[in-house]
């Protein structure tokens, strides 16, 4: 269906349904050729080992080639379509490399550290009286607890506030209500608050209310709330808007009061989306480092599960500190803590996501597929 198409080619002719099409697997062939060309160019420069370089050049050549080929054979519209599709594919492939590489870097560095001893114990320092040597045994349990406590408090405060605000925005406030417009705008602004500013806010708040030098978990949780609330509002607002109006109308028609309609119908219908939104809000803040370090301080060995008194560590902060200040005599221990805590953080997020999915699946009403 393709060979004779090229003979019809005429630059000025309008393309019709009968215009030529490129062979089906042309994209694969062009891609192979482009990458090979990229490799050749790099070989010419004497940098054949720079694989990523010739892949990028190959991708670029591929886009150019497919664009030109398609516009010659298939006409402008189809060529644009093919070009955009190629562009999206290439963008995706190029972008997925760093993302996967990030995950892989953490997993490959962190996986060997994950022993029960490492996870469920604080870092231990064992002093040997005979040699005066202190041996560190890696452990990140205080940081795991600290992460869960701080993020937990932030979630307990932020998720209800965010959800209720979203309910107000979607269910109560009229579209023309000036307060509604202001709140919507401020939520948008708040989503853009840099996390370090939230940390400084908590620092300033506790400096002024409690006194300078106050480090505790609550302070960090408040910093995280500033970041979580807008995320939660936006996510739940989107979800509540998706609830079909007929469901509400049906409830009202049956004489159900408004708040019961919201709780039993609107929230119930959107529970899956809300749980996902909550999880995203948690995921957004659980890996924060600088604001938590500024607000909650850092404790290397001490176990502290009390958010009101004393410095608390989180996994991200432990990862950062141990990377910045490796132990001079046992750098392997601090390296293990740096990578291991980063990996545990990611694993916690995965677990939270899975829980969210299970919860969502259990509570969501049987919906049409």
């Amino acid at each position: 269906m393709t060979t004779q198409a090229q003979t019809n080619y005429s630059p000025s002719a309008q393309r019709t349904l009968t215009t030529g099409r490129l062979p089906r697997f042309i994209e694969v062939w062009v891609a192979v050729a482009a990458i090979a060309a990229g490799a050749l160019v790099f070989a010419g420069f004497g940098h054949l080992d720079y694989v990523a370089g010739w892949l990028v050049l190959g991708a670029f050549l591929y886009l150019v080639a497919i664009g030109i080929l398609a516009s010659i054979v298939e006409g402008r519209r189809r060529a644009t379509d093919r070009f955009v599709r190629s562009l999206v594919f290439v963008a995706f492939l190029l972008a997925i490399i760093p993302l996967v590489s990030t995950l892989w870097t953490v997993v490959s560095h962190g996986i060997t550290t994950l022993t029960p001893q490492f996870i469920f114990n604080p870092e231990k320092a064992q002093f040997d009286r005979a040699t005066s040597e202190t041996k560190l045994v890696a452990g990140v349990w205080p940081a795991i607890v600290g992460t869960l406590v701080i993020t937990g408090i932030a979630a307990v405060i932020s998720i209800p506030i965010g959800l209720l605000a979203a309910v107000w925005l979607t269910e109560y406030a009229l579209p023309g209500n000036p307060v509604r417009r202001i709140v919507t705008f401020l939520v948008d602004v708040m989503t853009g608050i840099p996390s370090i500013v939230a940390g400084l806010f908590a620092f300033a708040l506790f400096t002024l209310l409690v006194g300078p030098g106050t480090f505790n978990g609550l302070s960090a949780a408040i910093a995280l709330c500033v970041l979580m609330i807008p995320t939660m509002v936006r996510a739940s607002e989107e979800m509540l808007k998706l609830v079909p109006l007929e469901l509400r109308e049906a409830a009202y028609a049956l004489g159900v009061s408004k708040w019961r309609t919201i709780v039993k119908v609107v929230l119930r219908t959107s529970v899956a989306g809300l749980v996902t939104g909550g999880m995203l809000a948690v995921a957004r803040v659980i890996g924060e480092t600088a604001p938590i370090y500024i607000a909650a301080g850092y404790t290397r060995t001490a176990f502290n599960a009390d958010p009101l008194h004393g410095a608390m560590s989180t996994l991200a902060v432990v990862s950062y500190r141990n990377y910045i200040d490796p132990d001079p005599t046992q750098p392997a221990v601090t390296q293990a803590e740096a990578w291991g805590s980063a990996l545990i953080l990611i694993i916690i997020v995965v677990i939270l996501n899975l829980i969210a999915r299970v919860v969502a699946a259990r509570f969501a009403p049987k919906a049409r597929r």
Partner: protein
Amino acid sequence: MTATPATAANGGGPQNTGAPTRLAAMKVSKVGDRVFLGLSTGAAWLIMVILAGVAIFLIIQAAPTIGANWLQNTALQDRTSGFTLGYANFWAYVSPLLFGTIWASFLALLLGAPVAIGIALFISHYAPRRAAGILGYLVDLLAAVPSVVFGLWGIVVIRPFLGPLNDFLNTNFGWIPLFGGSVAQGGSTLLAGAIVLAVMILPIITSISREIFLQTPSLHEEAALALGATRWEMIRLAVLPYARSGIISSVLLGLGRALGETMAIAMIVSPKLIFSFQLLTNDNPTTIAANIANQFGGANLTQANALIATGLLLFVVSFAVNFVARWVVGRASTGPRRRRIPTRKASR
């Protein structure tokens, strides 16, 4: 109370008027309704209070250093933590930081945003359905990767990876000011920082734009296809106009993250308080957020106030950027409106 059950945020439709309104108004008198209304209204007001609180507390802490003459302040001329040493006032100190913040965020958006939207389009409109679910999940997961990890990744992967590229660009394109200067052999360049920053904002932009793309009414898409549009034309005609304000929101969120990103820049880039557009040298402007992360620990009381003042400026900048962008979105979205097709559930 004049509450309507009508949700429709933008526009609404003819179905918003009529019986439900009156019914709802009647029911609102119940105690449960009052409590619930009070709670949700309170939550909405609380958001305003929090935002005001952020501004007020930062201003209180920052105020002593913003107007002051720094040269006459012994604490700010403290040599042992000498980062404020020799700066005449707040503006002299913060202007290179402000420049660096905007420049680095701009580069990150330039590199990251198109790719992020590309990925979102790929997941929503090009990838096979099952793969799309997995990819979407992967991207969501990456949104949770802590910034420290990106910092570590930047150091162990990106810096060495960019080494030969830096040399190549500098040798062959050194006449372009961006690639000029003398190459940082260790790789602590702003280019490395901007690339890591771009990767960091990918997940957040992607996951939001993807959600928006998926919400495009399928009727619009099908109508476009039925009229003989190619896939790209369908996207251009049906998806992008519908998603425009959502895309801008997601990019803004990415910008917010880029503006405020601390650790990645602090760990990767060799930071100086200078104005420079060069991407490949050790002389890079640094960002407000990274500078705070770098210097806060060593700061004395007054220097901490000065750093909070820079944070306040960052807050103002992010506020202003959002303000302007909202205004632009508001104008843009007077065109094609977002409208829900009630019969269709969002596919996830």
